[in-house]
């Protein structure tokens, strides 16, 4: 690691008026060809490059990003991290990720501010309770730390919550203490910094226009900066993955939908865990800067506008105001949208396909930020070995034919 950051480096640079900081990453022109081209400079893409270089010894890699690093969903998500998914396959995948999160700041020597303040899923009716108790039990057998909280325990953790005087009272919650939030942009930057250090080319403002194949074998990519050859192409373009797959003649079972979020004005700390609710649809956490970061639901139609409808914002805010009466006096500072790619079973695809040398990591829908390190890690394994890691074996494309779906709708309806 060349660029070492610490309190000392900060003091040192303070003396030189902060004018001597080194560049975090270079912006080279693309080479003629690479062993692996990763399409998409979000967290998953940059992470994949990092693990390919670090764990699989592949160094001749380019990450190609059409805009700026982390400008996709990595830069616009509500940053909730947890692993308490219902099915074993998911629980293993997401917990692999949480475990990597726990050491990521130190590993990359870049503070991701992973804050394990706990994630709470509220139950508002008998059905919610049943579903959550089942999930807690399954999680426990998978070695996860999800637990049941009764209303009193909830009130102790989140005193500002209105649990009784609302249309659908709060009846309890599933709580995962190891869950939390992280600084989303830092994830992209940290991986970029360290993979670039290991020789990965990071090419921004370069759009992949199509994936070139010959006889079911990948040849490279045509980009806005010309053709680039590649032995392997790994597509991690989130909302745009199915559009790119199409250029290689591959069809993916994905639909791209707007997903919106908003932040309030900053205030002093009032809420110290992440709270999500399905029936009263809203998710809240408070960032270290003080804003409430609030997630809405997906819009009900395909769209690539990064916008979404105002009615969805209204739905969310209604819920927030009801659950937290003090927020009635607060204000929305900014709202925005991302484009999420949704799979029919609400689980991702981390898989090879019928074209040799072409790999997809997609379908994370509304909840892939939490998986960033884990998904990148097993995807790198899949790309390097041309076969899946044990953890992502089930997340293949065949499941949409044989029916072996990993249906996380119940547990993942609030997938953030």
């Amino acid at each position, binding site marked *: 690691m060349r660029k070492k950051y610490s309190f000392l480096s900060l003091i040192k640079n303070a003396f030189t008026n902060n004018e001597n900081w080194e560049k975090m990453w270079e912006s080279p022109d693309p080479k003629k060809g690479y062993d692996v081209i990763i399409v998409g400079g979000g967290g998953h893409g940059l992470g994949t490059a990092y693990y390919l270089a670090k764990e699989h010894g592949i160094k001749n890699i380019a990450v190609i990003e*059409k*805009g700026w690093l982390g400008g996709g969903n990595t830069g616009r998500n509500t940053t909730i991290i947890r692993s308490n998914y219902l099915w074993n396959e998911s629980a293993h995948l997401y917990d692999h990720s949480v475990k990597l999160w726990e050491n990521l700041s130190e590993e990359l020597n870049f503070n991701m501010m992973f804050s394990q303040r706990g994630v709470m899923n509220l139950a508002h009716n008998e059905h919610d309770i049943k579903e959550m108790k089942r999930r807690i039990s399954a999680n426990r057998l998978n070695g996860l730390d999800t637990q049941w909280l009764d209303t009193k325990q909830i009130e102790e953790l989140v005193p500002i919550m209105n649990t009784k005087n609302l249309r659908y009272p709060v009846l309890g919650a599933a709580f995962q203490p190891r869950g939390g939030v992280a600084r989303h942009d830092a994830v992209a930057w940290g991986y970029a910094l360290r993979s670039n250090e290991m020789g990965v080319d990071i090419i921004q403002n370069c*759009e*992949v*226009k*199509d994936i070139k194949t010959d006889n079911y074998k990948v040849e490279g990519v045509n980009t*806005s900066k010309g053709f680039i050859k590649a032995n392997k192409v790994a597509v991690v*373009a989130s909302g*745009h993955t*199915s*559009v*790119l797959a*199409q*250029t290689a003649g591959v*069809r*993916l*079972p*994905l*639909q*791209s939908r707007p997903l919106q979020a908003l932040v309030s004005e900053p205030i002093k700390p009032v809420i110290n865990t992440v709270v999500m609710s399905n029936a009263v649809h809203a998710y809240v956490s408070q960032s270290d800067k003080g804003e409430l970061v609030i997630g809405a639901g997906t819009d*009900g*139609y*395909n*769209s*690539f*506008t*990064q*916008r979404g*409808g*105002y*009615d969805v914002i209204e739905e969310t805010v209604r819920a927030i105001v009801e659950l937290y009466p003090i927020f009635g006096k607060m204000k929305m500072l900014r709202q925005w*949208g991302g484009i999420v*790619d949704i799979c*029919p079973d609400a689980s991702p695809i981390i898989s090879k396909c019928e074209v040799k040398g072409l790999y997809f990591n997609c379908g994370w829908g509304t909840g892939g930020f939490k998986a960033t390190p884990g998904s990148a890690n097993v995807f790198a394994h899949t790309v390097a070995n041309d076969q899946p890691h044990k953890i992502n074996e089930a997340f293949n494309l065949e499941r*949409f*034919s*044989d*029916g072996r779906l990993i249906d996380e709708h119940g547990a993942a309806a609030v997938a953030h």
Partner: protein
Amino acid sequence: MILINCPYCGEREQSEFSNGGEAHVARPKNPEALSDKDWGQYVFYRSNPKGIFYERWVHTHGCRKWFNAVRDTSTDTFLKIYRLDDNRPDISEFKSTLKSPSGEPSVGSGNFAVKK
């Protein structure tokens, strides 16, 4: 919130409607004759283009009628709305301003504010 012109009720806000995904996907006549893979294609796979998209809507909180639409998913503009018994309009009727499959349209996208 986009406005949708229901062929039966007139213009209403999108929240009165539900989207039914890709249009003109006929249910296979003889499902038993299909392979698992082909059946899976029908059940789980739908086109997801950026740009011109043929899709279905239903006026859930109005007349409850289904209809088809052609919409530019890169700008959310409706290019045409037509009834189920109308013919599928030809793609050449519509102009896409996308420069590349995942590029942004020249105006109306979520991502550019400055004229290039």
